[in-house]
């Protein structure tokens, strides 16, 4: 899927991260820099004082037009651990329902001197739109836009993979489930290919896989056992309940029978393979509880690493304001 806007919008004239909207158009070097920076932040929970003073005095606004508890909470925690102050805007109950346009909302929040917007919106391209219209002293982080992109989730997944596997280049990674409707999968595929893994596979029923697989640089499998054979990483996607209503899927039981991950099926992957899931898990639909809670599951680590990765992205994006110079 083409990006709604030029991805260069994300970089300033020094090639540094100004907004974080999509993985598309970002270099391997920059992705590695995000992971390296996150590595330092990941050690902070081990200290008596978990905060660092990096963004002291800055205001970060969570602008969530779509419900999300965990993503919003980890962004809020990341901002607070950087010593920034956080405002949460629950747009469902605010002025947009009274007919205020997105741009009006933006201008109002800018007038509150926010330095950064963390945006989640059901519409693809919403974060790009806001980044294009925001004032030069504001950075925008995409926390998920429609089916398009969820770049911080992809980067926390890359961080988790690197923690367990070290080098990306020899890895085979399978992404299983509803790839077609998943902004997470789209961002993961871009990140994995940019970081140079050996092979990315997508696994699922025809109705839930994109047709442009070749353009995405992935191999397509419709059989789970075959799709995860000899892979180092299995990423399970959440099956959105609303997909069950349409003609895309027969029913939950049938889906689990064909694509649910069980210990038995996991035998096809490499013995040291890790199992990931962006959460929340539908137990008994995407995977068995035995797998989700088993020794190869790194699902809860993903949540912890998500905080460090979001801290890295926020602090790096704030650097663009340093490049502007003058009083900030």
């Amino acid at each position: 899927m083409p990006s709604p806007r030029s991805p260069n919008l994300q970089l300033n004239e020094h090639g540094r991260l100004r907004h974080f909207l999509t993985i598309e158009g970002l270099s391997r070097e920059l992705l590695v820099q995000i992971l390296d920076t996150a590595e330092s932040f990941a050690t902070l929970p081990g200290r008596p004082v978990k905060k660092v003073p990096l963004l002291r005095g800055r205001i970060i606004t969570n602008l969530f037009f779509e419900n999300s508890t965990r993503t919003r909470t980890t962004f809020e925690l990341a901002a607070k651990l950087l010593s920034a102050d956080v405002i949460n805007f629950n747009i469902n109950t605010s002025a947009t329902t009274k007919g205020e346009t997105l741009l009006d909302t933006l201008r109002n929040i800018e007038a509150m001197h926010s330095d950064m917007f963390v945006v989640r919106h059901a519409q693809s391209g919403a974060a790009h739109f806001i980044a294009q219209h925001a004032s030069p002293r504001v950075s925008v982080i995409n926390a998920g836009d429609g089916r398009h992109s969820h770049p911080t989730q992809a980067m926390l997944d890359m961080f988790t993979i690197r923690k367990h596997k070290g080098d990306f280049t020899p890895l085979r990674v399978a992404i299983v489930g509803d790839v077609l409707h998943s902004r997470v999968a789209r961002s993961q595929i871009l990140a994995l290919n940019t970081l140079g893994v050996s092979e990315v596979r997508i696994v699922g029923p025809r109705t839930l896989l994109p047709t442009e697989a070749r353009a995405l640089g992935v191999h397509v499998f419709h059989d789970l056992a075959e799709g995860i054979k000899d892979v180092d990483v299995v990423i399970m996607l959440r099956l959105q309940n609303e997909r069950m209503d349409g003609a895309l899927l027969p029913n939950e039981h049938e889906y689990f029978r064909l694509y649910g991950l069980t210990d038995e099926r996991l035998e096809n992957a490499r013995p040291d393979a890790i199992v990931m899931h962006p959460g929340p898990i539908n137990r008994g639909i995407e995977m068995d509880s035995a797998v989700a809670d088993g020794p190869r599951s790194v699902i809860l680590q993903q949540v912890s690493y998500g905080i460090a990765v979001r801290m890295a992205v926020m602090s790096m994006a704030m650097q663009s304001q340093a490049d502007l110079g003058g009083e900030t």
Partner: protein
Amino acid sequence: MTESTQFMKHDAILDLIDGVATVLRNRLRDRRLDDPAMIGIHTGGAWVAERLNAILGLDQPSGLLDISFYRDDFTQIGVNPQVRPSKIDFDIDGRNIVLVDDVLHTGRTIRAAMNEIFDYGRPASITLVALIERSGRELPIQPDVIGLSPPLGLSDHIKLNGPDPLGLEIFHGPRTGR
């Protein structure tokens, strides 16, 4: 382009660190700073701290501080892309800390380092060791133990290269980059 000259070579620097170790040992003894723990500031200070640690024969390895997240010039320079995790494997609370840096200049690095140390705990004391002390202080911070105070011009900079071999290099004129 900035010109540079070699100021001191590996063996001479090792001699200098030996001298610092002797002064430091005496100072710790005179002030009854028992059971000290060493912390070096990334990168040059960490190399010096490791050697001092070995000479003094301290029990635990020296700690490492990367003060990138504590710098007061973040709004001008942003996050250092080469940031690495700080690593302090001992309890700071009630401990006599020896804080080591390669070059003491403005004092801002030391202020940041002390802020970070206090986020790990409340030390009994901090003794500051600088291999090189130079003019240009912007904060009221002075070292307890000094290796050498070479005369430097206002626009000169001195840098410790290493870790093997160690070398002290002086750059003349305004420095490019950070």
